């Protein structure tokens, strides 16, 4: 009897696990139609999608069990690299956005040099402190970055022409929306491939039991570095896209605690060890913040993020989506299927 119950419960979970992402995808694809091309709704969901990519990128490192409180370093580096190259040298954003990712990965390599030997809490503290370095340098290198004045008038994303069809990605909000949605889907596919590859399996193994992982021949440091670099690369690309969409940058904005905290919060609330969890959390929480709490509390509406992360770590450390997907992850530590 009891067994039957659990199997039917599992069947429901299975169905939700399939239905929710498909439903979300359909809703996202048709959103501009549902929203009747309302500017505000489109802006909010464009930003929510961008934050979803940020959470996905954060989780490439998060899946290995490390918690980073310093991803703003990569976000800001990507944003500034792409903005300065396109603004001062006139290079097309299509070329500068990947370069933003490359520089972010370079910064991650430096960070890795100092921080990768650290574990758990100490790694988190080191990343928290590390953000200050690119932030203060950007703030003070007036000749290159214009310092605390920030950058204004960034070029938007150029429009794509496919035959007679003209796809404008910076002039129209719908264009921007579909651009970010496209980037998000590409990143989602990449992360899925990554998590199912040997690299992903190795990262999950070293998360569960690092010593055991090392004993069966996983080169722990190599994989940790690789996941940090990949995570930083995509965070940098997201930062670069952010710059070209908002078209305005300031050191305190892109290197701020906000962009370090947000991906960590979404990833943990959604489910750190799942593929979809972090992105789904971003797509739910950010619109809730903007549509419900922002009008109620113009100053201080972001308390929501503090509240959800406290609740998540106390009552659901594996995250909402992680809870739902239980049974799909084998825990080596407990020897049982969770």
């Amino acid at each position, binding site marked *: 009897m009891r067994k039957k119950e659990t199997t039917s419960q599992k069947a429901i979970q299975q169905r939700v696990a399939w239905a929710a992402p498909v439903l979300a995808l359909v809703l996202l694809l048709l959103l501009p139609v549902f929203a009747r091309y309302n500017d505000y709704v489109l802006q909010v969901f464009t930003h929510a999608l961008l934050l979803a990519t940020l959470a996905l990128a954060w989780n490439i490192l998060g899946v290995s069990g490390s*918690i980073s*409180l310093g991803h703003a370093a990569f976000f800001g580096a990507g944003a500034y690299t792409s903005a300065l190259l396109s603004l001062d040298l006139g290079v097309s954003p299509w070329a500068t956005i990947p370069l933003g990712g490359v520089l972010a990965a370079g910064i991650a390599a430096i960070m890795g040099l*100092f*921080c990768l*030997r*650290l*574990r*758990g*809490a*100490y790694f*988190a*503290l*080191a990343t*928290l*402190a*590390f*953000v*200050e*370095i690119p*932030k*203060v340098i950007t*703030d*003070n290198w007036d000749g290159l970055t214009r310092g605390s004045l920030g950058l204004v008038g960034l070029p938007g994303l150029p429009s794509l022409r496919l035959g007679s069809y003209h796809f404008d990605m910076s002039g129209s909000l719908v264009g921007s929306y579909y651009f970010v949605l496209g980037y998000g889907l590409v990143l989602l596919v990449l992360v899925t491939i990554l998590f199912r590859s040997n690299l992903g399996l190795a990262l999950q193994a070293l998360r569960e039991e690092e010593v055991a992982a090392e004993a069966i021949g996983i080169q722990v440091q190599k994989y940790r570095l690789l996941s940090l670099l990949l995570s930083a690369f995509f965070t940098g690309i997201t930062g670069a896209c952010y710059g070209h969409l908002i078209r305005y940058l300031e050191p305190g904005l892109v290197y*701020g*605690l906000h962009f370090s*905290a947000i991906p*960590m*919060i979404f990833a*943990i609330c959604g489910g750190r060890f799942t593929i979809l969890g972090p992105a789904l959390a971003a797509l739910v929480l950010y619109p809730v913040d903007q549509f419900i709490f922002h009008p109620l*509390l113009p*100053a*201080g*509406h*972001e*308390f929501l*993020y*503090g*509240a*959800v*992360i*406290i609740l998540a*770590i*106390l009552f659901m*450390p594996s995250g909402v989506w992680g809870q739902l997907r239980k049974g799909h992850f084998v825990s080596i530590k407990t020897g049982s299927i969770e």
Partner: protein
Amino acid sequence: MWTTVLVSGITLGSFYTLVALGFALIFGVTHTFNLAHGELLVLAGYVAYWLWKTYGISLLFTFPAAILATLVVCLILQRLFSRLREPMEMNSIVLSFGLAILLQNGMLFFFSGDYRLIRVPTFNQGLHFNTLYLSYGQLTLLALSLLVIGLLYLLMRHTFLGKALRATIQDREAAALAGINVGGMGVLAFAIGAILIGLAGPLYGCVHYLYPTAGLQATLLAITITIFAGVGRIRTLILGGWILGFAESGAVVLLGASWRELVSAVMLITLLALRPQGIFEREQ
């Protein structure tokens, strides 16, 4: 010039030690990281600012209210921490980070994002000794910091309670075996930590501008000094505070005020890189 660096290094450094004391004590006794430390400090500063600005209460009498505010938040935090699952250090970081965001937004709501400073007129006057200049503000900061550090030293070294606290810091299991209520010591550490933060906060509001996100810098310097000293060593904490104070004053003179923020971050990363296994494993 270097005498100025020396003087401001010692005053600032002593004050930094006071800022770090609460963090170090809570961390030592309960093995939890309180990332909301800086936000609590800023909260205490805001309470003092609000009483001083709206009711004209002198700085000295704002301390009890500031302590009350930090005490309430710290005891709530202690209750939340006691419900955390393993790994404690990591989960306490995430939880207190959430609390920091909550406090930042609460302060933004109640006190707005404007920069505030508690201006005590006499603090800008001072004494001249040849080339050396000491403002009353610096003197007050130095005297109060050293007084509080001294009192805590007496508590830790010369009372039975302090002995129990130190035993808990050194070895929790052995302390429990010796009949020390380790859980109770945790609550006590949070309470004493809250009092220390409540004392440091209003002083912080006199030397630094208060704004809702100002806490991160204070948190970073508290972590830096604590990691430098290891736990339970008040004298090493003072040394760490002074080194950080000198380094910051030196950086301001050599590079300019805008580079000051970098000092504690670079020091923390260097310390962690040199001692990657953390604090507790050192003696083994």
